[in-house]
């Protein structure tokens, strides 16, 4: 009898226990926000990739035109076979992948040497003009990578693709050889100039936080300079160098703008340019296979990095603490070194910009006479003989639309990305012990592995039509904002979690005991204390969004034209001066924002790209 009367009570007890457990679990902000964050990540990252993966194994309607064996909606290996093992696969896959890998590896090595060398000079020696050199080194990063390609072409162009030959040819009256004008060499050169900044920032941050007593201790043991560099400095810098390598490699292998300008004229395809032309040729499924292969390569690289760096993590000498630093005297070399560095940096950072700027004032390209000077491309109206009547940039409504779109996209997405990064970073940092925190940390890293061009290929398919409660975003700026936020997540979440980690949990707990809700804590404690990191993330995304090409080139429609895509369109049409005018305006905006953010907000780019 007693058991009978007890049963309802224990049942009720169990139900209330479950209820309490669930509400208790959800009341923990890490779990609640983590769950929402994971749903967001699953929808924007994991689900699209899975969908694409499945799509590559299914016959499409349009396959019926190619082969009679097609059976729409049914399983097939046809697409994979077509890309990897058919008569078109050498030109569709193997050659582009070979080109891309060769370019990526070469670029990574060259950037490593340039970036590390420069970082060492700036942080560890008594080189003069350090501030100026640092600024010069960051300039290429503020530009879209293909601006350098554009400048390269202005200088080295030959008659192959028509139009006016480049400056070199005008000066020497000799045809510039193809290998110097197009293809592998100029692509590698342009990308290396742009990407060495990653090494410079990452290794620079690591070097400046390394205690120089470690070097002095080696020196006391009788080691020479070369040996200290090789045995002490290099091993300690290895994690930073490797992450720079990965960053450069994945960016270079999936870069689109540079190979499109410098490779396509001589049929030098990289996987990204091939992907783009496959999309344009309506070979969507084949393009998806290419995307997946590109992702696979990036994943392999990251995996290898983890294998190598994983063992290196035990080094604790690179702490965030302010440590004693002794600068290495360069002695007699000090002045010559400084001059060489400044001249070289000017050559790669300022000269390309100047070339492009001067171009904007020339009515006809390559004619260096006073009567050729004009402001037509800036202010002029429509003259049918020039650029098919395209108006000067500042008069052109398309430009104004693109400017407004660009600013709008960059501003909105950088604010959203910075805040989302901080919130997810909060979950990753505070939830380090829980599965949900680790999941958020890892999944938010995933877009890093997805090359921009692949991600946009996926998003086109996914958001072309309404999806659950999400309307068809294709054709609106919101799709571009969404993809920018998602693509930058690995950087913003990393910056956010690093920053939250530095704020002791007790600061938040004391607010919690004072009765503050999570939102109040976030607004009044976390947000102000993370201001600097938030601003850095904002700056990083803003610059990224302003110069973004790969990611959005396939997504824009005439209504959502941005400055980069407009420029790119001008490039394709051969409107050199107009291209350069738009570029100049874009660069001016980026440099202005960079200056304001670093000057008044103490923003720091290194926190975003993975500096300690």
């Amino acid at each position: 009898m007693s058991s009978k009367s007890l049963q309802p009570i224990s049942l009720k007890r169990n139900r209330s226990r479950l209820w309490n457990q669930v509400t208790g679990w959800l009341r923990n902000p890490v779990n609640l926000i983590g769950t929402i964050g994971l749903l967001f990540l699953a929808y924007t990252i994991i689900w699209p990739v899975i969908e694409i993966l499945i799509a590559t194994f299914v016959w499409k309607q349009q396959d019926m035109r190619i082969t009679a064996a097609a059976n729409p909606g049914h399983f097939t290996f046809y697409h994979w076979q077509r890309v990897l093992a058919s008569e078109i696969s050498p030109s569709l896959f193997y050659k582009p992948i070979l080109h891309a890998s060769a370019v990526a590896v070469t670029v990574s090595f060259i950037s490593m040497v340039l970036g590390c060398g420069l970082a060492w000079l700036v942080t560890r020696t008594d080189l003069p003009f350090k501030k100026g050199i640092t600024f010069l080194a960051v300039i290429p990063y503020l530009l879209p990578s293909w601006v350098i390609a554009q400048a390269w072409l202005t200088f080295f162009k030959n008659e192959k693709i028509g139009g006016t030959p480049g400056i070199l040819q005008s000066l020497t009256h000799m045809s510039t050889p193809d290998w110097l004008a197009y293809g592998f060499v100029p692509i590698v050169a342009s990308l290396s100039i742009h990407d060495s900044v990653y090494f410079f920032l990452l290794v620079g941050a690591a070097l400046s936080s390394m205690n120089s007593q470690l070097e002095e201790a080696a020196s006391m043991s009788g080691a020479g300079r070369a040996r200290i560099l090789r045995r002490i400095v290099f091993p300690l810098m290895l994690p930073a160098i490797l992450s720079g390598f990965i960053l450069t490699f994945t960016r270079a292998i999936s870069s689109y703008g540079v190979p499109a300008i410098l490779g396509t004229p001589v049929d030098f395809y990289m996987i990204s340019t091939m992907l783009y032309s496959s999309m344009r040729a309506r070979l969507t499924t084949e393009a998806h296979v290419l995307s997946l292969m590109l992702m696979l390569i990036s994943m392999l690289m990251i995996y290898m990095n983890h294998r190598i760096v994983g063992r290196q993590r035990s080094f604790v000498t690179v702490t965030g603490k302010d440590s004693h630093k002794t600068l290495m005297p360069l002695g007699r070399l000090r002045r010559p070194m400084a001059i060489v560095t400044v001249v070289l940096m000017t050559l790669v950072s300022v000269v390309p910009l100047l070339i492009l700027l001067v171009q904007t004032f020339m009515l006809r390209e390559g004619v260096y006479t006073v009567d050729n000077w004009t402001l037509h491309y800036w202010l002029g109206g429509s003259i049918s003989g020039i650029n098919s009547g395209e108006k000067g940039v500042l008069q052109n409504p398309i430009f104004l639309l693109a400017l407004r779109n660009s600013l709008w996209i960059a501003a909105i997405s950088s604010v959203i990305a910075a805040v989302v990064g901080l919130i997810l970073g909060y979950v990753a940092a505070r939830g380090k012990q829980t599965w949900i925190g680790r999941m958020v940390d890892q999944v938010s890293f995933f877009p890093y592995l997805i090359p921009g061009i692949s991600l946009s290929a996926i998003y086109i398919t996914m958001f072309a039509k309404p999806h659950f409660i999400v309307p068809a975003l294709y054709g609106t700026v919101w799709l571009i904002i969404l993809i920018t936020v998602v693509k930058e997540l690995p950087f913003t979440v990393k910056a956010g979690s690093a920053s939250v980690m530095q704020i002791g949990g007790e600061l938040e707990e004391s607010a919690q005991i004072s009765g503050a809700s999570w939102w109040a804590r976030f607004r009044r404690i976390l947000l102000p204390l993370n201001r600097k990191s938030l601003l850095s993330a904002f700056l990083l995304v803003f610059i990224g969004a302003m110069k973004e090409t790969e990611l959005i080139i396939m997504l824009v429609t005439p209504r959502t034209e941005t400055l980069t895509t407009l420029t790119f369109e001008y490039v394709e049409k051969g409107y050199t001066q107009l291209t350069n005018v738009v570029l100049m305006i874009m660069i001016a905006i980026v440099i202005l924002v960079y200056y304001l953010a670093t000057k008044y907000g103490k923003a720091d780019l290194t926190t975003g790209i993975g500096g300690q």
Partner: protein
Amino acid sequence: MNAIELQGIQVNMGRKSILKGIDLTIEQGDFMTFLGPSGCGKTTLLRTIAGLQKADGGTIVLNGREVANGETAYHMDPAKRGLSLVFQSYALWPHMSVYENVAFGLQVRRQSKAEIREKVMAALTKVRIADLAERYPGELSGGQQQRVAIARAIVTEPQVLLLDEPLSNLDARLRVEMRAELKRLHRELGATIIYVTHDQQEALTLSTRIAVFFEGEIVQLDRPQTLYQRPATLQVADFFGNGGMDTNQLSAELIATDGGRSYLSSPVCSFPLEGITLTETMPVILTIKPEHIQLHRSYVPQSVPSVVEAVFPAGAETLVKLMTEGSELSARVLGDAEYSCGETVYITLNPEHMNLYNQGSGVRLSGVRPITPTREMIRA
């Protein structure tokens, strides 16, 4: 009325059991100290009471309200429990001024500006830093930061104030000063205080009651005087010994005589005992505090000769290390003591202040008392 009732509190972290069933009742107005070495679970228990840590088992009742129940997984939000916590690191918000730090809790409770101003200034006055209201935490000394942290905790007039090793980051002089402040605040506020520390002196000075923790369990709960005089186990005695309050420990035996009487036999003393009946000889540990050993220049009845090994003058008192019958002893003497090394002195021990522990289990033999020696016995 009982302010806090804990029943069977269990907390696990991963597979490790941090608290293994804590039962404790704290009365309204108590100054309760959780004392123990680091890693014993005292801070975890404090955080569990505060609600920052979930209890995996047991119940917590605050002022008659159940705030946590491990069985039904009920967990009340820390903010609703009506308590405040002062963190070891102070956890002052660096981007807010002292005033804003203290006002925060009232602002989130949406009180009026004037009311907040009045309460904040009252709290700051109570901890005597009203003149620092506009400063930022980074501009304050450790002691001042400590006062801000306390002001922030008391401004919401909590019924229970939790303090987690609040003095451990201060230098010695400030620590003594802040002890007096805390005592004054406890008297003025009349709130129940739970205080976590690993400092024995601090615990003895401040508390009305002390709970001693070892490995997730309370091993003794007593008034400070009792705790000091009668540690329940050798472990507790040792722990107090490590805090600069050394205790002499000697191996001894309890011997049963034919008459049913028990005797203590040790190298330095022996006397009959009551309150215990023995069937065979029992090895015990005898402890006595240095201040309960008297030194004599010449022989007195019941005294044992000892050789002075070292002398440590410390101003108000002097610690004398002795070698007695092969055992090392320390004696504390008030004022200057002019002893030289190698000198022979005679010591007497007051049996009333001795404690006897079971050598195997380390538990104190309670109820065992020396029979005050009578004249006849001494003569015999």
